[in-house]
């Protein structure tokens, strides 16, 4: 076997220029593929991280709430339930929410907004709303104030200290009407949030929606340790019983996952085109290397070399070309991607606006997931193996005498 490997390796260098050109095409394709996939997966990871950060790894709701988000499907705080969930190994913390769609009026303008009642300190530790305040200040526990998105402020022409009237449906047929001062204006990454979300203290909102009994919630976001999500989802589902639904972030962020899938698919199509070009490059080299050694193959078979061994030599040649390209590609790409992973590029100007228009943080993030490197390298090696099919068929159908006569 060793001599076959030696022959295959040396055969590559019989025509150095051709080998360099082929290997370079593999390197370029791999570099391009790795950058593209790293960037794609980096942005997916950022989007998912940001999404999960906001909604939690899973949420506990009243049965049917997710499909029909009415205030009448809210539920009252259940300390035993919360204790049961928080005591499960892997659960990091929980954030209770009360959400209701209301009309918000200021002056002669009215706008539909989503009131989100939160525990100000706990929510801020996770979602970091205070960091997004552009004017005014963040919420305080028990304070009757509002943090509104900047687009809402712009539309209603409302400023810090002005009072906003909110009116909507309360729990079980009541009417919820209140007037609260705007304490902060925030700018979020998502234009949808800037246009829709109004944060307020949970207890204050609970009093607005149903003043007769404290503790009304529409959901509890549960945050857990990485990797335990699926296991915990099952455990929590089993422990909360039929009165509650437990929904994974994958369901809550299904639109985002769908768009990621679509984007991923378009990336794969691009890569496929790139790899088809590379495959032809490798194939043409293998083809030339095979045909130009027709007589040599004939002699080797004549003196007693089995065709199978010739096939193995040809396969080694294809693999070596791909390996040279893959190793060089990885050496070139890995440090650069590592640097970009640690120092993502923050976009500004029009590019930032474009990112925001897609509800994304204007950050070009890169992923260094080993699967990216592994899968792309494997694809290149598979293409090389695929190219080796030609010499296999060529050798197996080879007519020794015809080749010797030439």
């Amino acid at each position, binding site marked *: 076997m060793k*001599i076959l490997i*030696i*022959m295959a390796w*040396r*055969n590559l260098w*019989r025509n150095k220029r051709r080998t360099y050109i082929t290997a370079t095409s593999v390197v370029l394709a791999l570099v391009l593929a790795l950058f593209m996939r790293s960037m794609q997966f980096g942005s997916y990871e950022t989007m998912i991280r940001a999404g999960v950060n906001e909604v939690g790894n899973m949420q506990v709701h009243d049965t049917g709430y997710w499909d029909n988000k009415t205030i009448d499907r809210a539920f009252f705080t259940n300390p035993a339930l919360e204790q049961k969930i928080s005591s499960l190994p892997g659960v990091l913390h929980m954030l209770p929410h009360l959400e209701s769609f209301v009309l918000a009026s200021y002056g002669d303008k009215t706008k539909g907004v989503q009131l989100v009642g939160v525990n100000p300190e706990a929510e801020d530790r996770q979602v970091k709303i205070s960091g997004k305040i552009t004017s005014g200040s963040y919420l305080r526990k028990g304070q009757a104030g509002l943090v509104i998105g900047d687009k809402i402020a712009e539309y209603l022409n409302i400023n810090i200290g002005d009072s906003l009237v909110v009116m909507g449906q309360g729990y079980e047929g009541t009417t919820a009407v209140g007037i609260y001062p705007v304490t902060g204006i925030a700018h979020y990454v998502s234009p949808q949030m800037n246009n829709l979300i109004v944060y307020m203290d949970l207890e204050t909102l609970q009093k607005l929606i149903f003043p007769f009994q404290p503790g009304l919630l529409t959901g509890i976001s549960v945050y857990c340790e990485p990797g335990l999500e699926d296991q915990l989802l099952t455990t929590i589902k089993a422990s909360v019983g039929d009165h509650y639904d437990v929904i994974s972030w994958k369901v809550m962020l299904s639109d985002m996952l769908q768009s990621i899938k679509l984007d991923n698919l378009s990336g794969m199509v691009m890569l496929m085109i790139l790899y088809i070009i590379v495959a032809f490059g490798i194939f043409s080299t293998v083809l030339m290397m095979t045909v130009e050694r027709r*007589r*040599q193959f004939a*002699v*080797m*078979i*004549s*003196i*007693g*070399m*089995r*065709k199978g*061994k010739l096939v193995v030599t040809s396969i080694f040649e294809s693999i070596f070309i791909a390996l040279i390209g893959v190793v060089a590609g990885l050496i070139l790409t890995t440090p650069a991607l590592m640097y970009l992973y640690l120092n993502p590029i923050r976009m500004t100007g029009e590019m930032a606006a474009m990112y925001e228009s897609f509800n994304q943080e204007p950050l070009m993030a890169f992923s260094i997931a080993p699967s990216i490197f592994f899968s792309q390298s494997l694809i290149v090696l598979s293409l090389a193996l695929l190219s080796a099919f030609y010499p296999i068929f060529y050798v197996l159908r080879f007519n*020794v*005498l015809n080749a*010797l006569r030439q």
Partner: protein
Amino acid sequence: MSIIQINNLHKTYTDTKVPVKAVNGISLSIEEGEFTAIVGPSGSGKTTFLNLMGGLDTPTEGDILIGDKNIKDLNSRQLIDFRLHHIGFVFQSYNLIPVLTAIENVAFIMELQGIPKKERHQIAMELLKKTGLEGKENYRPGELSGGQQQRVSVARALASKPKFILADEPTANLDSASTEDLLNMMAELNKSENMTFIFSTHDKRVMDKARRIVTIDDGKVVSDV
């Protein structure tokens, strides 16, 4: 002792417009230790005859017995193995493996036979010494002259310890001095190792060295002296 027994050998090519009888009823016996030249004009069938003897081509009719094996009965895979262990080849254009050194070319055939590394290295060194290539072991074919390459080719043919060596016009690409050297070396090996050499040739100098000359014309033996 006869090592090759050929009985009523025919080879007809039917892939041409008109069927061509390249070998037309040759019967021949080759004894161990012979130094035989197969001669004849171009198109007489001598190369086809050599290819049939070497198991590179299959006869239309007739038998080729090498030892106790009729090579007509072997399938293509068995033929490859048979050639590896029983027949040595020397080609007109040397046909060494260009990416291997002289010693690797000689050892290559022994590696195919499964001979251990140490042993094949030792045998290859001895063969290169015998063929006058001491000191050239690590030269690649491109770094050797035509005569030297043909010597490596002979060493490679000897390396498999074959029953006989088939040499298809081995001197056709060599100058006079190289031809003389090569023939002397082969004659010496024939004498010292009792190795059977069968040449196909046009070369008068080969014929002069041969102890038996079989002349073929129109696929038939016309003289055997």
